[in-house]
Each structure stands twice: as structure tokens, then as C-alpha cells.
């Protein structure tokens, strides 16, 4: 059985989803549920931390595609951080870096959201 789990942490207005283990066609629905829950609560500033993700297949990549437009329509975004090289290479091979901002660290991604918020408030 593929091991996969998610955890969500709230950092101010930014919601961080932590991925752990193997994200494939079997486990992708778990991540879909996480996104659905956040969207139901009108939480659209989302950082996904890949630090503990060992594996991703196209079924996992599809989850990010399913929600991104709705989230951006609501002035939010999905920002990705802390991918290992293996996982990044798959994103890169499929051209995802054109559609998603990918950061080295969670701090940078959260900071980017906060900067945008600050500009909007000025």
C-alpha cells in the first residue's frame, strides 16, 4: 500500500499543505480533498511543501491543474516549495514551471504572498 499523508498548517493568511510519501493515482484523491476543504473555507493562499514527498506521477500533477484556475479567480495562488530534484524534474519535464511559481523554501513562498497582500493594502 502506498504511503501518503498530508498535513495543513496555517501561517497567518497563508495555508501550507505538507505532502509526505507517494502521490500517485491511488493517493491523489486525498490531496484533492485537502484542496476542496481549503476552497470551501475560502482559503485561497496556498503553499504546498514537497519536502517529504518521495514520488509523484501524472495523477498527482493533475490535482494541481484541477484547482488552480478557481484559486486564481479568487485572487489566490498555489505556490510550490522544497521539491527534491527527482520530483522537480518531473514538473519540469511537463512544463509546469511556466504555470506555477516554485520556491526553494517555504519561507520565500509565504513571503511572496505577504508582499502581494501588502501591495494590495497600500
Amino acid at each position, binding site marked *: 500500500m*502506498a504511503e501518503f499523508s498530508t498535513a495543513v498548517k496555517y501561517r497567518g493568511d497563508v495555508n501550507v499543505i505538507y505532502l509526505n510519501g507517494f502521490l*500517485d*493515482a491511488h493517493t491523489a484523491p486525498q490531496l484533492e480533498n485537502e484542496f476542496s476543504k481549503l476552497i470551501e473555507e475560502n482559503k485561497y493562499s496556498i503553499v504546498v511543501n514537497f519536502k517529504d514527498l518521495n514520488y509523484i506521477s*501524472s495523477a498527482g500533477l493533475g490535482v494541481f491543474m*484541477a484547482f488552480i484556475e478557481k484559486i486564481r479567480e479568487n485572487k489566490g495562488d498555489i505556490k510550490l516549495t522544497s521539491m527534491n530534484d*527527482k520530483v522537480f524534474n*518531473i514538473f519540469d519535464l*511537463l512544463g509546469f514551471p*511556466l504555470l506555477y511559481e516554485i520556491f526553494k523554501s517555504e519561507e520565500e513562498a509565504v513571503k511572496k504572498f505577504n508582499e502581494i497582500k501588502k501591495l494590495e493594502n497600500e
Partner: protein
Amino acid sequence: MRLKNLKTNNYIDDKKLIVQSRTENLSVVRDYIHDAALKAGINPEKVGDIILAVDEACTNIIKHAYKSIPDGKIEIQVLNNYKKFTIVITDYGSSFEPKKVPAPDLQKYYQQHRVGGLGMYLMKNLMDEVDYISVPGKYNRVSLSKNLNTVS
């Protein structure tokens, strides 16, 4: 390694793995390919590419050939002739025409909120050869090969 797991209707030996068409079996397939590729002397750095290509092939079979019906049969055979490491995957579900699967278009997926064809694109990029045979009403077979001189 020769055992038959009656509980899950999976079969495994050195040359062959048979699993039912359920996504929970993808991890069984990945573990099997991992061990077989290492045994064939493939560079551990490259084993991940092969595992992903086989996962994508099996995911497509589960979703498209068997349309998520969970008791279809997926047969996975590993062939190693010292030049090529080949995985042959056979299913008995609906046939399909690989040439009709369009190349992935991310901008289009963005608007449609879904993706399609990514699996096949990955397979072609991660492997040296990808061949399909489809005999409608009988079986579909995809062969994925890596040249050993580039990955050992």
C-alpha cells in the same frame, strides 16, 4: 521469490507480476520494478524513471482500458537481454489508438481543469522505446525499454 497471494489475486515470481486493475496495486508494481531493475544492474539513479513510466502505463490501463473496473488483469513481464531492459505490460480491457492521444497542452488543461496524455508523454520521455500493440477484443500490450548501455 515465488509466491501466490490468493487474498488479493496477485501473482508474483522472478519474471512476472500479475495484479488486478486497482490503483492500490500501483505501489506493488513500483516495488516489483524497483527490485527487477536493480537486479538487472540498472543505475539506481535511473531506476526512478523506469518505475514512473511503468506506473503511468498501469494507471492508464486502470483508468482507460478497464475504466476503473477493479477486477481486470494486468500482467507485467520483465525481459533482460543484456542490451535492453524491457517491461511488457498486457491488459485485456478496451483497446485504444495511441496515435489519437494528443500531445499535452498545459494552457488547454489550465482552462479545462484537467490533464490528459501526460502519462504517455512521460513514458516516451523517460524510456528509450515505447511500443503499443492492440488487438481489439483480445489484448493490449505496451513494451517499455531502456538501453542498458546508457543506464547501467
